């Protein structure tokens, strides 16, 4: 048998997948209690999406150091000064139910056999397609924050910011603060949606104040804000994006398709909220439930963040969207639960420590929940996906093809995928799953009936050259012959 693989598996108490706020908190608390911890992330340093670090080559000057940058540096230092073994630039491509985590990194393959596993792989951005969403100049809100926060690049000379939720305001404010121009804001939420969110947002006055100051910046800059509107079409005319918008109702239905307005810019930054990342929990065949107020499909967890798979814990936005602040508490609780279950921490100590965490969690979660309400998926928004709109952009699958397959009898997501190739490309459905699930659910009655795509390895595309390594023909452990 080949030696490169099996003999290389290193044993460790706890592996944490994802080094965002939840993962760092989980790893740190578990390590402090004496567990041997490895944290793995595909990025080059800790921070996740929210506290993403700039590349080492260009550290920002003081004037560019935002609160988020400072918080990120704090977390990166905590990790650096802990006993946690951090593997950055490592992509996890396989997690098996006996908790062997396979990664591919700068030095090739490596594997870790964990006694416990904490999945803190965060969230993905939902973008409901519309004609023109795949043309150059149209990018996600989350992608825009990466450009702004870690690359110090404006998404465009004149950007239309569209979609919903806190990211909408954050991106608009970020562009203004960086000296850029926002030509309009198109918000799915109406004024009354924001007013309804207000009481819950008060649970974190500091954050509410911050949001309001961002909002004040936007107003001061005199940016036109279209509340209760959705983007219905985008065309490129002479390097300018001509973006059609229309009023919607609270379910996302377009109210007056004839009364469309046009806004212009050279970039459209758009996002329709975040949803928990379930690639790893689906791969492990953990139980999931669909909960719109948590952002969509979430793995089922108990009070201590245990999933339905023994030894597997979930933390952060992967348990349901509630933001970076509560992610820290979720991570700490999951980390403590893991070390308690490993008998590294006593039950008594656990109980004593958990109390204060739960109080802070509740407060932060309230704030997060208000934010999630503002990002809640509006099922009728799929009206913007016309027959000629590409839904799966990896495989160029049009809405008309999705509809034809459903008409021909595809009643679950996996059959729909087989008949159209939607979700079969390099992103493996991360970009289109929400739209395709919503289209199918509108025909079969619910998201539960539409189902979820089967999780499979590899979790990220893996270069074959890295998988095979150096070998000769004799190194291939060929099983016994097939029958004659």
């Amino acid at each position, binding site marked *: *048998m*080949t030696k*490169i*693989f*099996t003999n290389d598996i290193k044993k460790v108490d706890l592996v944490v997948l994802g080094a965002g706020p939840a993962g760092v908190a989980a790893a740190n608390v578990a390590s402090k209690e004496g567990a041997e911890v490895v944290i793995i992330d595909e990025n080059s340093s800790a921070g996740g999406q929210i506290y993403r670090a700039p590349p080492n080559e260009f550290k920002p000057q003081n004037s560019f150091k935002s609160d988020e940058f400072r918080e990120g540096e704090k977390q990166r230092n905590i990790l650096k000064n802990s006993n946690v073994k951090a593997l950055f630039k490592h992509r996890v491509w*396989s997690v*098996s*139910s006996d908790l*062997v985590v*396979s990664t591919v990194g700068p030095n090739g393959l490596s*594997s870790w056999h964990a006694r416990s596993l904490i999945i803190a792989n965060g969230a993905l951005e939902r973008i409901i397609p519309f004609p023109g969403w795949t043309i150059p100049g149209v990018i996600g809100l989350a992608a825009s924050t990466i450009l702004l926060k870690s690359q110090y690049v404006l998404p465009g000379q004149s950007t239309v910011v569209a979609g919903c939720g806190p990211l909408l305001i954050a991106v608009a404010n970020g562009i203004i603060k960086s000296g850029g121009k926002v030509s309009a804001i198109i918000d799915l939420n109406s004024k009354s949606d924001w007013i309804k969110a207000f009481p819950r947002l008060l649970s974190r006055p500091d954050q509410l104040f911050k949001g309001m100051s961002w909002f004040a910046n936007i107003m001061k800059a005199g940016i036109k804000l279209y509340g209760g509107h959705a983007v219905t079409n985008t065309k490129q005319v002479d390097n300018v994006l001509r973006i059609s918008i229309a009023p919607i109702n609270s379910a996302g239905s377009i109210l007056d398709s004839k009364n469309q307005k046009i806004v212009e810019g050279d970039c459209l930054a758009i996002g329709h909220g975040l949803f928990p990342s379930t690639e790893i929990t689906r*791969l492990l*065949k953990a139980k999931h439930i669909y909960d719109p107020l948590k952002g969509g499909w979430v793995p089922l967890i108990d009070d201590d963040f245990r999933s339905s798979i023994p030894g597997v814990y979930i933390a952060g936005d992967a348990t349901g969207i509630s933001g970076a602040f509560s992610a820290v508490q979720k991570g700490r609780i999951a980390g403590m639960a893991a070390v308690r279950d490993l008998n590294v921490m006593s039950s008594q100590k656990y109980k004593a420590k958990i109390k204060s965490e739960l109080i802070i969690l509740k407060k932060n979660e309230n704030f997060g929940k208000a934010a999630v309400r503002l990002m809640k998926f509006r099922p009728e928004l799929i009206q913007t996906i016309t027959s000629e709109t590409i839904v799966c952009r990896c495989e160029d699958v049009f809405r008309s093809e999705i509809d034809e*397959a459903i008409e*021909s*009898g*595809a*009643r*679950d997501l*996996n*059959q729909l995928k*087989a*008949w159209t190739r939607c979700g*079969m*490309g*390099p992103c*493996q459905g991360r970009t289109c799953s929400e739209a395709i699930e919503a289209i199918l659910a509108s025909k079969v009655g619910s998201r539960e009936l539409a189902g979820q795509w*089967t999780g*499979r*390895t*590899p979790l990220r*595309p*893996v*270069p*074959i*050259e890295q*998988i*095979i390594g150096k*070998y000769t*023909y004799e*190194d*291939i*452990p*060929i*099983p016994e*012959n*097939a*029958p*004659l």
Partner: protein
Amino acid sequence: MEKFDVAVVGGGVMGCSTVLHLSRNQMRTIIIDSGALCREASGTNAGTLTLNMTRAALIPYAIKGWELWNNTEKWLCGGVGTRKVNGLSLAFTEEEEELLFKRIEARQAMGAPIKFISGRKAQLLEPGLNNSVRSAAWCNKDGFTIAYLTGHAFRRALKQENVSVREYSKVNKIEIEKNYFKIIFENNEHLKAKRIVLAGGVWLEEMLNWLNVKIKIKCLINQLIITERMPPVMKTVLSIANGLLSLKQFDNGTVLIGGGWQGIGDKKRGGVESIPENLIGNIRLACHVIPKLRYGRMIRVWLGLEAETADALPIIGKIPGISNAYVIGSVHSGYASGPYMGWLLSQLIMEQEPEMPLFDPNRLINK
């Protein structure tokens, strides 16, 4: 109460083609599946239509199946992307060459148009091949389909023929009444049919058990690997002499790597997970054969279940001791010959003489 002339339990290629032919002969039919049509082996296999890998005894059937897949417009509703290309089974060592000889002889004897060719000739047919290839078995009746489209083509054909299709309906048991079989679903609903066909792939052992017939069916968990789209690296269907590789590139540029390397799973849980070592072994073998494959990226791995009887030959025919009950399954390379096997069984059900001999399950009954 709905009553049918025939109820087929199991909606894969075997069940679908059996029911399609029966309905075209004026029978009132229903096909039942616990999931969606053709989503198990029939939709997850590699789609290979090769005689090089087919068991020698099944060659005549596979040739008929190959012809059917190459003429889907005549009997299906929509294509499954069938491509006719050269097939090569390769030998890299002296040992493999000996095995290759044996396999060619056995297949030629059964009527397969397979020829022994030199490594040089093989490289002319497949320029992407590794230089170290010694010799090959060449067959021009080869090719592949896109297996995941199978359900789409069948679903539409069945609709056209007015076959009742009942998906996502798990059957719990079958009771024998006077002139009918009573098929009872998990939700306690039931329906009646004069004849039944069990076509449940790896689950046939449990299904035959409903009728108290005991036949052991082994369940293989085959791993399949697909790459991202890549520039053309090959144009044939490739295997190696020992039969543990199947390799092809689709029109869209993706390369499918299979060969029956095993993953983890069972009948109860289905395919559970892949085994990284077996993925690496399988991919190394593929890259040894087509070196340029190393520049691609592995994008997805899945698991397909394959049924196998004790003698690795099919069970197709009457269920021993029970009149009007039939079984079809456990055909090695069953996807390729499936449409033909279904047609043969429909002949038997319609009380005609099947064009080729069937495979009496009686030989396998645990007495």
